[in-house]
């Protein structure tokens, strides 16, 4: 395992009576692209701000390279940040913005000009060096903000939803730029976002937070396929969630009694749970099989009515409501459902294989 750069050791942050971050333990490794994801108010930005020294932890310890930095002023840390608003200085031109950090470190004019120009060149915006910030486009501003933060050659770069103001097209391009930049520089990026697509596109590891706590840490595929608990599964929205109780083993498969009937999962997924224990399992939207007739040999079948369709690129997500009111989502390619009638109110069967189900270990 790679070396730790930053350690959050039982860190808590309170604002008055509200707990923004609750006893957090987190290792950030050298050279990784870590994404902290969660909805607004989950404590992700507070975590980043504590790392930058803009908020001080109420309890616990934050260590950078093994050194406690709780009480180190922001301006004595080397933790540059790219802000959601970008926070470019409107009264300075592009070059002056980029060299700001070097100037504050007392570097002489000629050298800092040179370094700043080097970075502008690297970001492909050298020709705008003497422009005012207000004359730049959104994407160009992003690059200025990046150059301004990276020009001091830090070990770590903090990014607070920097792409949220860009349109979708530009966002994808900036994601690629950020990913490549991080690989080239080999430094640690800590990236805060509420956007799943950004997180999964760029992150080496993803931290999912909710109400000040970490719900799961892991590689994107890991989180996507094997969510730790109900919250993560629901937050990602990529799986159907079923709750029930374990029944005795049946022919190498583990039956689970739910409100919708008895479903089978692979025995290996039981995770050492006792018979009768309450349990939650998920089935990926894309693992659902649809048919007009009741499938003969399927072990896990539900019947329901189509209530709507949602088109995203090459796939369609079909929303189905079972007779007892649970909503099921099935994500299919256009080809796969070409022969099916998916008009609203059509009756339809949903089935899945036992190996497609995953029992949540955290429930």
């Amino acid at each position, binding site marked *: 395992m790679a070396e730790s750069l930053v350690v959050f050791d039982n860190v808590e942050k309170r604002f008055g009576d509200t707990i923004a971050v609750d006893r957090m333990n987190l290792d950030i490794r050298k050279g990784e692209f870590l994404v902290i994801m969660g909805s607004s108010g989950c404590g992700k930005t507070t975590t980043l701000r504590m790392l930058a020294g803009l908020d001080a932890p109420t309890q616990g310890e934050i260590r950078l390279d093994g050194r406690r930095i709780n009480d180190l002023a922001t*301006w004595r840390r080397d933790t540059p940040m790219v802000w959601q*608003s970008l926070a470019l*200085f*409107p009264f300075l031109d592009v070059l002056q913005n980029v060299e700001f950090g070097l100037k504050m470190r007392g570097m002489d004019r000629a050298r800092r000009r040179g370094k700043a120009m080097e970075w502008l060149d690297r970001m492909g915006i050298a020709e705008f060096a003497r422009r005012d910030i207000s004359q730049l486009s959104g994407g160009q501003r992003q690059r200025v903000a990046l150059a301004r933060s990276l020009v001091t050659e830090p070990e770590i770069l903090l990014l607070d939803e920097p792409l949220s103001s860009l349109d979708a097209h530009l966002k994808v391009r900036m994601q690629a730029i950020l990913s490549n930049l991080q690989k080239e520089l080999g430094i640690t990026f800590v990236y805060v976002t509420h956007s799943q697509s950004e997180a999964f596109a760029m992150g080496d590891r993803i931290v999912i937070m909710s109400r000040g706590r970490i719900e799961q840490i892991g590689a994107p595929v890991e989180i996507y396929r094997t969510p730790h608990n109900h919250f993560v599964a629901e937050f990602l929205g990529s799986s159907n969630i079923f709750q029930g109780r374990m029944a005795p083993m049946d022919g190498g498969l583990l039956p689970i009694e739910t409100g919708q009937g008895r479903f089978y999962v692979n025995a290996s997924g039981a995770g050492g749970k006792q018979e009768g224990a309450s349990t939650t399992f998920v089935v990926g939207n894309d693992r659902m099989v649809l048919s007009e007739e009741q499938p003969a040999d399927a072990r896990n079948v539900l019947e329901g009515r189509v209530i709507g369709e949602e088109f995203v690129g090459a796939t369609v997500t079909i929303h189905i409501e079972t007779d007892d009111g649970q909503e099921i989502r099935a994500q299919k390619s256009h080809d796969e459902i070409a022969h099916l009638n998916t008009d609203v109110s059509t009756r339809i069967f949903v089935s899945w294989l036992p190996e497609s189900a995953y029992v949540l270990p955290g429930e």
Partner: protein
Amino acid sequence: MNRNWLIDWSLRAYVILALAFVFAPIAASFVFSFNADRFPSLPLGGFSLRWYEAIAEDPLVWEGLRNSVVVGICASLLSTALGFAAAYTDFRYRFFGKPLYLALALLPPTIPVVIMGLAMLAFLSRVSLSGEIHSVIISHVVMCSPFAMAIIRMRLSQMDPSLEAAAWNLGAGEWRAMFHVIVPFARPAIFAALFITMAVSFDEFAVAWFVSGLNETLPVRILGFLQGQVSPRINAIGTIVFLTTMTLVILAQVLLMSRSGGVDETPRRQEP
């Protein structure tokens, strides 16, 4: 819709009437400052610069002007500095008793000038600071700093609050961030505050009259003329003072307009 049309236009006419009332004395004092008659009235007498000559030859007017300029410059520098500091405090900090702090900072213009004058006179003479030019400066700083604070505070509220944090984050300590980020951002408002407070100080007569003793400022001299017999010299001084203060105000306005392009967010909501 004929009736609506009538109502709309009579309302607009009324606006013009109100503006006429407001500007009548200003215009009249301009016109009559060039009028030769000793007792200004209609019809106009001949064109003359005698009132300008009269004030130009009056050493008291010159002394008043000198005092006014000194007071105006000192009061505007001091009250802008104090107002800036208070505006920054309000912008950045939350603390116990802040409403009280703001009340203390902003209340002086609501106290009648006569009472301010009496209070300042009584207090300053008790501590032997009365009757001098610095007594006027002290009082004017009290009265002007709320204006400076309000102007600069409005500018700061246009600032992205992460701008200052971004400077810290890039290695600037609080003092360096202040001079490299906050001050440059607020610069147009700082200049506007300097001009506006100078204009306020330049026009203030009541408190200055109470505390200035023999060191009369120009408006106090005008009060002296008013107490004496009616004299068109007031018109001449008034015209000069009006042109001076308007120059200051327009300069402030131009500064606020031209440099306010520094707001990097989308333009604020237009008034409805």
